[in-house]
């Protein structure tokens, strides 16, 4: 495959899974500007790892692994930003005007705020749970056993239930 073909395929995969990038960035970055940088960083790392993509995993699994690893790591730190000095100021992802009903939009916002308060690994797990990923895939992304995934998700369900029971 030529570089142009490879790049074309990469952008196609990225476009198909753009939601993952957006949701991960939102969970780990509250600041708009930093979020834009984090998305750029994730795209860079995905592209750098694209040659080593293992077909045994689905693209979504591969993207989740890298996106979450980049978000959890120190990549998004300010000093790193200056070091990289990305010359690209445009956003890779732009959200068009929100036409969600007010009540739903408010509930989503509350859910996002709740996710933001969680520890790094719990954030990753809750995102995968909300995405309704099968335990097998969650286990492959997180690197824990399926039984452990079940236990941790059980705990998250209780916290979610407590937090949102009044809504």
């Amino acid at each position: 495959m030529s570089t142009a073909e490879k790049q074309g395929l990469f952008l196609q995969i990225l476009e198909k899974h753009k939601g993952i990038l957006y949701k991960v960035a939102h969970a780990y970055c509250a600041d708009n500007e930093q979020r834009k940088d984090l998305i750029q960083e994730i795209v860079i790392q995905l592209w750098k790892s694209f040659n080593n993509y293992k077909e045994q995993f689905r693209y979504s699994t591969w993207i989740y692994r890298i996106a979450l690893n980049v978000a959890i790591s120190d990549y998004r730190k300010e000093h790193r930003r200056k070091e990289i000095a990305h010359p690209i100021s445009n956003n890779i992802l732009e959200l068009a005007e929100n036409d969600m009903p007010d009540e739903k939009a408010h509930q989503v916002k509350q859910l996002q705020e709740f996710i933001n308060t969680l520890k790094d690994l719990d954030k990753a797990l809750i995102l995968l749970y909300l995405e309704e990923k099968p335990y097998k895939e969650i286990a492959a992304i997180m690197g824990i056993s399926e039984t452990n995934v079940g236990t941790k998700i059980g705990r998250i369900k209780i916290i979610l239930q407590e937090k949102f029971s009044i809504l």
Partner: protein
Amino acid sequence: MQNTDILALWKTYDNKLETSLQFNKKTAEAVTQLRVTSFLSSMRPLKLFTIVVGLIWVIFVDTLIINLYSVASPFFIISAGIQVLLTKIAIGIYIYQLVLMHQADISENIVITQYHLAKIKSTTLLIARILFLQLPIWATFSLPLHIFNKENWLLLLVIFIIVLAFSILSIWLFVNINLANKDKKWFRLIFNGREWQPLIRSMELLEEIEAYQM
């Protein structure tokens, strides 16, 4: 709101993103063309430089010890010997960090990758602990043998107190600088600067990883 409602809410949000999220292909394409070294690759030259400088220092001090063994004060020989031994251990840790960097793969699962990344940073703390162990030898290496007589008892008492205080402090710090004490005031005071923040965060993450594997 039940869990099923929460999942349904997320699904609505997901569908909304599918339709409203615009992917800027041109920008993404430009990003793939950036020549950026990875975070770990950028750390490697500094580690290698430190190892090389450390090795030069070790060779220099070892040469001094061998050549001055019969003429220098035993305090100098023993102090220099301890210092060079601790430097060798620190070099060993830097080499271990390079191995961890080699093993770290951003496309691996979260627990493995984050463990490697956090371990690289947290082993820097081990180097700091070892450096603290060197404290007493800076008070002993220049002691000449001839001061050890009755007339100098007051000076010897002062030196003894300083060396004892440094030894107790360095051993205490070596033992107590660990994950369990990261929230203590004295710990936060020593590791206060911005440069230590990623290290503290790594220690917290290591704790989280350990809890996740249970």
